[in-house]
């Protein structure tokens, strides 16, 4: 292949950060043993995973005992919702969510609250803050949940406002920082926080769930020594997740600023293609995620066309998923759901890669439109 490939689909699964990779390889040698055993090898693994938890807790600004490792991000969200619903079941069963939360969270919330009524978002994908706050103040609310930012369109959410409203009502707030941590500063405005190592350059196969000790929560399932993640998690993955996060936070501001400049080039290139709807908030948003929809374009065909030209991107179009339903995020925003492309720049993205993508995009869209015979419609 003449042109090197550019991976621009870093949402939830980023290339390993070099610091994470080095830590993973070292921990494969040092931390392979069962940390529950009492011999030298077991204690060595125990030390490594305890250090990883302490490091992650410090990064989030919580205590080590409030920091739990889970199997993955989906697992974190499901467990968090179920644990609070169980711990606070006497309060009621209403869960307050935005319409653009991750599908795993909406499904978990729906299992607790059969009358779940997600709070709507505006055209940019931002939740109606006052409506969310009013909903959380109603009687019978067991849990409020709001993402720090939307991983599909990048728009950040009014988490500070939500936390103030929830705290005032005595309701714990679960913040999904799965798309944010490692990319933007994540504040202390949460009672439970879920974050995704795969998103910040850590390995897959481990999730992070922080639960303030003041939260009344009872993890579901039969008793286990590690109730938040029965059976525990792999030590090397945990060590690598922590090392990658520490390295990422070390130059967070610079990496964000650099990527925002590159992302603005993609935004301009996408907006210059005829009949393209660039969606999400252009300013108060993640520095690396941009989504746009191309009218009359088959999303799967466009993904394949870009892939053929050396660019890996994501999509929220129905025709790219196994279900017939398009992205619930795009649907809730009232924007075009077909022909959708999501660009998520990994932190190592170069200007050359972005410029090559910007140069290739108009022709990729045009060629799909020619295939469908919709030019000039």
């Amino acid at each position, binding site marked *: 292949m003449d042109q090197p490939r550019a991976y621009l689909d870093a949402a939830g699964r980023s290339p390993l950060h070099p610091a994470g990779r080095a830590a993973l390889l070292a921990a494969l040698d040092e931390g392979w043993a069962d940390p529950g055993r009492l011999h030298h090898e077991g204690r060595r693994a125990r030390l490594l995973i305890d250090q990883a938890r302490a490091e992650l807790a410090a990064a989030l600004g919580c205590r080590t005992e409030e920091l739990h490792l889970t199997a993955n991000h989906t697992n974190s969200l499901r467990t968090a919702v179920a644990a609070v619903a169980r711990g606070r079941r006497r309060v009621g069963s209403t869960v307050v969510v935005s319409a653009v939360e991750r599908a795993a969270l909406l499904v978990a919330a729906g299992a607790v609250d059969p009358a779940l009524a997600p709070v709507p978002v505006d055209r940019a994908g931002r939740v109606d803050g006052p409506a969310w706050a009013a909903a959380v103040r109603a009687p019978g609310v067991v849990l409020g949940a709001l993402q720090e930012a939307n991983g599909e369109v990048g728009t950040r959410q009014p988490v500070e406002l939500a936390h103030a409203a929830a705290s005032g009502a005595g309701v714990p707030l679960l913040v999904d920082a799965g798309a944010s941590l490692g990319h933007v500063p994540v504040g202390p405005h949460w009672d439970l926080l879920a974050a995704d190592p795969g998103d910040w350059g850590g390995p897959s196969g481990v999730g992070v769930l922080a639960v303030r000790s003041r939260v009344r929560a009872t993890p579901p399932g039969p008793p286990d020594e590690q109730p938040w993640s029965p059976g525990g998690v792999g030590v090397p993955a945990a060590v690598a997740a922590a090392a990658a996060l520490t390295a990422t936070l070390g130059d967070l501001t610079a990496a964000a600023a650099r990527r925002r400049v590159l992302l603005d080039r993609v935004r301009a290139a996408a907006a210059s293609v005829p009949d393209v709807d660039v969606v999400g908030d252009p300013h108060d948003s993640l520095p690396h995620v941009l989504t746009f929809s191309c*009218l009359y374009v088959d999303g799967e065909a466009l993904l394949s066309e870009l892939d053929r030209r050396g660019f890996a991107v994501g999509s929220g*179009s129905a025709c790219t998923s196994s279900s017939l339903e*398009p992205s619930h995020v795009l649907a809730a925003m*009232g924007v*075009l*759901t077909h*022909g959708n492309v999501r660009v998520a720049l990994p932190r190592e993205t170069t200007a050359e890669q972005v410029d090559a993508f910007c140069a290739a995009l108009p022709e990729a869209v045009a060629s799909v439109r020619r295939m469908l015979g*919709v030019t000039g*419609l």
Partner: protein
Amino acid sequence: MSATADAEPSLVVDARGLSCPLPIIRLARTSAGLPPGTLVAVRWTDPAARYDVPAWARMRGHEVVATETDVVDADPGMSGSGSGSAWVTTVRLG
């Protein structure tokens, strides 16, 4: 939506059984060159059309008049779509 929902559309596009983006493409082809104010209806079964017809209308300066359950029985040729939930959306061209 409004009382005009009862107005008879001049043209009806049958996009039942088609998946995205084909319903929108059919609708756009039929609407091309028609005078402003013309009512065009599209019958659809693809879930994405619920969002994409209004988004298309917004991008093109048209107005969605109404979306209603399609009262006509599902096309007998549509075996496999199963649900039988067909809808009709009426658009006033801008």
